[in-house]
């Protein structure tokens, strides 16, 4: 195959080229980053060209053809320039047409290696290797157009090299790595979980609707970045305003209102459908397995995603159960890793990119979630833990006063100046806010079970994060003079993956939890990163 041949030249400097199918990937990446952003503008241009006679349609189409040609040429140059080289302790990637750069990544900086088969490469048996690096300036390196077999081999090599590099230069993780090496390896991976179609459908229903809609589109296009511009473009294309005007002319305001209501209802019904379709695209054939010290997940209908995470890289496990998940008694589990490869570099919707890349185990029954958490975080028992709540008075007071204070003032003024009926509105809102705050307070809590801690917050559903105490990076204890008088404090725990705060804990509890976490962090010999 092309990717195993060195670049022709008088001297073999080790640079390897990727298969020509990578061209397609360059085009897709470019479409994702630039063209879709410009599409709404182009649609407007085309529309106005079609309707007015000042701008000619031919001219606009010519422009489009030119843009496509430029894009293809750019991709070709990108492809010709692109190369990678494996060295003994690092991998180098050469890329860029005008702004030429050589990325140089040490194996021991590699956090994660994923093998992704996008739908446009799958028929050719090609894949994209994604390399996630550590560090605040971390970003993902893409190696498109590698044949699937070699890609898998390369992942094995990168990951095991990352391990041996670590073994050589540091002694703290050595103990744990040595232990793992002694453990039976190379045996068949053990399958931990396989999701059925039904599970995937439930996963679709329980996930955040809007996000799923975006991802459904994003998966097809290759990324979620462009979802928003797609929406704008669809609205433009449907010419919603024109339709509304026609309706009003034909049947008056009533018909328009009926049509709007109908469309809204349809959209509301459609959202879960889109969400489920998105889940099917993303999670079809979901298989979670454990292979040595690595958890591996493979899923996807058109594009296959194959990610893995090493056991000791898991910083925390979050159980997400929103209202709908509660109804189905399912839990969506998320592994929190110290990956700096968020979308910060590209500057586009990092939240969505994170969600797509993050390691999710969706649609679990409570017992499954319990059992899997025990595998992800050895020694973590979440069943016996009893949650300790936070101070009710402080929680309610602060959360309601800041919300209701300005609102109450406005309502009272309105009641005096306009109509006494505003008082009823005020009462309704007041009671609602107090009830919501009370429910949120009830869902907030923390617990320590052995070496692990558990933080929970939520409203109807809940969001529970479990983490080994020794993974703590830093602890902040914050107290205002008022809190000091009432013996309360905020405790913020910083993990390598994210930070969590518990507000209005009892001061002694906060201090004890802090001291315990620090004790664990400073005495543990286990690898935390």
């Amino acid at each position: 195959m092309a990717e195993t041949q060195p670049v022709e030249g008088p001297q073999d400097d080790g640079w390897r080229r990727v298969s020509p199918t990578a061209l397609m990937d360059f085009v897709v990446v470019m479409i994702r980053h630039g063209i879709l952003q410009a599409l709404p503008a182009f649609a407007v241009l085309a529309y106005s060209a079609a309707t007015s006679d000042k701008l000619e349609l031919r001219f606009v189409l010519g422009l489009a053809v030119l843009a496509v040609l430029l894009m293809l040429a750019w991709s070709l140059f990108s492809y010709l320039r692109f190369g990678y080289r494996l060295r003994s302790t690092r991998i180098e990637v050469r890329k860029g047409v005008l702004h030429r750069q050589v990325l140089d990544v040490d194996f021991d900086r590699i956090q994660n290696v994923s093998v992704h088969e996008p739908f446009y490469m799958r028929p050719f048996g090609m894949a994209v290797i994604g390399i996630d690096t550590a560090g605040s300036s971390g970003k993902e390196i893409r190696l498109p157009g590698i044949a699937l077999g070699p890609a898998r081999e390369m992942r094995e090599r990168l990951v095991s090299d990352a391990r041996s590099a670590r073994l050589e230069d540091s002694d703290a993780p050595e103990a744990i790595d040595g232990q793992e090496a002694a453990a039976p390896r190379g045996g068949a991976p053990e399958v931990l979980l396989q999701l059925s179609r039904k599970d995937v459908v439930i996963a679709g229903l329980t996930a955040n609707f809007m996000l799923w809609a975006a991802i459904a589109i994003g998966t097809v296009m290759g990324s979620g970045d462009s979802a928003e511009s797609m929406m704008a473009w669809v609205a433009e294309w449907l010419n919603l305003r024109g339709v509304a005007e026609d309706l009003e002319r034909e049947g008056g305001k009533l018909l328009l209102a009926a049509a709007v209501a109908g469309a809204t209802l349809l959209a509301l019904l459609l959202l879960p459908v889109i969400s489920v379709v998105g889940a099917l695209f993303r999670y079809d054939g979901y298989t979670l397995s454990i292979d040595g010290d690595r958890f591996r997940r493979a899923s996807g209908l058109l594009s296959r995603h194959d990610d893995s995470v090493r056991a000791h890289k898991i910083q925390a496990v979050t159980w997400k159960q929103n209202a709908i998940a509660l109804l189905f008694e399912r839990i969506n589990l998320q592994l929190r890793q110290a990956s700096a490869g968020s979308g910060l570099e590209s500057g586009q919707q990092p939240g969505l990119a994170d969600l797509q890349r993050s390691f999710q185990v969706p649609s679990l029954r409570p017992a499954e979630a319990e059992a899997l958490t025990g595998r992800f975080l050895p020694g973590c028992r979440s069943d016996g833990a009893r949650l300790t709540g936070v101070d009710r008075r402080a929680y309610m007071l602060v959360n309601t006063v800041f919300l209701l204070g300005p609102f109450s003032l406005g309502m009272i003024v309105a009641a005096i100046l306009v109509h006494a009926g505003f008082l009823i509105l005020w009462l309704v809102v007041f009671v609602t806010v107090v009830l919501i705050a009370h429910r949120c307070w009830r869902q907030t809590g923390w617990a320590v079970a052995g070496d692990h801690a558990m933080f929970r917050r939520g409203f109807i559903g809940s969001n529970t994060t479990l983490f080994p105490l020794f993974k703590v990076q830093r602890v902040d204890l914050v107290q205002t003079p008022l809190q000091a008088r009432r013996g309360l404090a905020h405790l913020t725990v910083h993990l390598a993956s994210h930070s969590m705060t518990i507000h209005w804990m009892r001061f002694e509890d906060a201090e004890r939890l802090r001291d315990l976490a620090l004790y664990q962090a400073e005495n543990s010999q286990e690898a935390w990163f």
Partner: protein
Amino acid sequence: MAFTNLPVDPGTLPRAAQLQLHPLPAEHRREILVQSLITVVIVVLACMIPLIIPAIPSEVRIFLWVFPISALVLGVVFTALALVRFRRKGYALREHDIVFRTGLFWRKVTVLPFDRVQHAEVTHGPLQRRFGVATLKFFTAGGSSVDLKIEGLLADDAERLRETVLERAGHG
């Protein structure tokens, strides 16, 4: 190495609260004062610009004094707060971690285990150099932002602290 997990009596855990904290040096207070003085002078002068515009009638101009005076008052208040905050700041080293306390209304105590420090840096601003103080920053793997920032340490102390922490963190 065998993994042990012995029970720990919560009562015998080392407590971060019972620590004698080192205050920051008096040089830092002088730096705060000079910094505040410079800022206040600049802001007050800027607020006095309308007073010298001849187009404004003198009856109105008297009221314009409100701006520089309120700027002056605010400056004095903020300086006083900064001085009180200075007195509340303190740091301490323990065997395995560094403790830093700061904040006037939101009193924050940060504890950072040496083991978790990824890198550290010492910076000297122009005014800081004048007073021989420096800012010490520690970074962990937690994110891109600074995890612990101690402003106004004596330059030598900052350097020594950094070396001590990195040495114990195993970065040599």
